[in-house]
């Protein structure tokens, strides 16, 4: 496995009015690494993740993702960049309620020129991989939390991302379901070498990762 730096954050700061939420954070994530980001509620984990993934611009500092400097890029450029290189998994799943499971998985492909069959094939393949092959036509409302998160993971993978960002992926799930989801993520990392940055405040979950980064009051402390 080559150990290229896939994500570099350099001297990142984020300020909301007079509140500095992320303070001069620098970190590097190598290709194939599974990194977890832990810290107390409100310490700035989600904010840091949004800076590193290009969902938000830092007040200061730089982000280089897959060799491309994304700080200062326009919203449209960032969207295209996310479409090609980044996958997201959220605590609250964030599925589109009007679309079926497979359509939710295929959502990132909708703006891309390809046939609907191609999109569907790819989505079904991933849903099968998530052991969701039997619920592809259901709407999110008909799925359990764990099932929703499996659909969301399939969606995060549909563009063959270089890196997956996950913000408390088990935060809305009971511990058994959460463990199952963690197992899926861990397997993704181990079997497919997926690079992942996962935010969590549960230390046991963080231990699944190769490396743990701790945050406190907007600063990285390890």
């Amino acid at each position, binding site marked *: 496995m080559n150990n290229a730096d896939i994500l570099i954050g350099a001297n990142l700061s984020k300020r909301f009015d007079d509140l500095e939420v992320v303070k001069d954070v620098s970190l590097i994530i190598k290709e194939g690494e599974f990194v977890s980001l832990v810290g107390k509620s409100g310490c700035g984990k989600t904010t840091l993740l949004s800076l590193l993934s290009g969902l938000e611009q830092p007040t200061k500092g730089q982000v280089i993702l897959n060799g491309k400097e994304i700080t200062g890029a326009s919203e*449209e450029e960032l*969207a295209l960049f996310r*479409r090609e290189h980044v996958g997201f998994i959220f605590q609250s799943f964030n*599925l589109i309620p009007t679309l079926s499971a497979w359509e939710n998985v295929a959502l990132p492909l909708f703006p891309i020129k390809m046939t609907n069959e191609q999109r569907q094939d790819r989505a079904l393949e991933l849903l099968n991989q998530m052991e969701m092959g039997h619920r592809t036509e259901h709407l999110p409302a008909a799925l359990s939390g764990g099932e929703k998160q499996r659909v969301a993971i399939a969606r995060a993978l549909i563009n063959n991302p270089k890196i997956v960002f996950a913000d408390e992926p088990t935060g809305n799930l009971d511990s058994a379901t959460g463990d199952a989801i963690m197992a899926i993520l861990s397997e993704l990392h181990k079997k497919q070498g997926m690079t992942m940055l996962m935010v969590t405040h549960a230390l046991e979950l963080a231990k699944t990762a190769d490396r743990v980064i701790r945050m406190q009051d907007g600063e990285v402390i390890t």
Partner: protein
Amino acid sequence: MNYRYIWKEIRHHRHRTLVNVLGIAVGIALFVSINAVSAAYQRAISLPFKNIGADIVVQRAEKRSLDSGQPPASMRGIRLPFSNQILSVQDMEKLRTISGIDAMVASLLLWEFDQGGFKTIMGVDLTAPSLGPIKVKEWLAQGRFPEKTGEAVLETHFAKFHKIKAGDTFTIGGRSFNVVGLLEIKEGSQVAAANIYLPLADAQSLLGGSAGDINIAYLHMKNPAQIDEIKTQISKTLSGVTVTSSDSFLELMGGMSQISSQFSLVVSLVALAGAIFLIIKTMVGNLVERSREIGILKAVGWTSSDIQKQLMGETFMQAIMGGIAGIAAGYLISYLLGYLSIPVATPWELNLTPAFAKIAETSAKTIRLPVSFSAGLTAAALALSLFAGGLASYFMGRRMSKMKPVDILRRL
């Protein structure tokens, strides 16, 4: 564009879609019905003239008389209507010198008062072109039009009132006429409506004046746009005559008929603009409710223009549905209104029966609104609903571009 997603959004949010579609439909229905009804009114008031193929009617009214509600005691037998004194040979010659007139028909209109009541008699030139009262021969219900002296046709209501059938004889001014046919006066044709039509020569001999007497002239223009110009020219050349055209009806009818087509267009556009404004407000409001969805789309890599296309697809779909529903409803309303008969007030000098004679009032007085389908209006309505859709997508797009994908990270 992804029709699957567009369709699902529209179908799953039935209530939302219904409100939007109804909003557009109401605006478009208002636009269509106001314009269709206004156009029908414009057409209705032109009917009295159009039906008889004339643009202008020229008459000479009795100088002193007013159409009083009481019949003068001395009125018995055949006489000239108050508003129709003889047009002299010189008058007719002057009329002929006016350019821009391509056909002219003169008739002699008479009133008869006797024990049997009151009748209007139209003496028509059988050799003249189909214009003015000659036009009525196209409306025969039974029999034929008079061909020679001593023959007459009766208007059906009048004939029924007097229990006369085709083939009977009928006494006019003491002379017996063969009733050779019955005819029905078309709606709104009071400008040439009479109870009895007979050859001009017979009418002239009934009046007992000089041969060649006529008292009403129907003119057809080469170019209808010149009507006003020619009307003033006639008034100038022939002093003391009454010159009427469909405008005279317009002045009398008031209400909707006074609303010019431009004005009704403005009114309907204002109504539509109000509806569009409300729709845009609700659509943008809906979008705010969907900010999470927009955030998800942005997070997974949809660009603003991808999302804009999606929103436009949804909006245009609803605009088209609303537009079609509105056009259908608008015409439905207009046709329903068209079922109501509207009174067409006739300028007194064109009212061929005196105000005190209330017998045998025919359909000539009221007409149905001639509502008709207009391709132009329909296309305009459809274009306006698409424009509304475009405008709504524009404002939604502006709102959407301000939504941040990062917001979804903190939503539960």
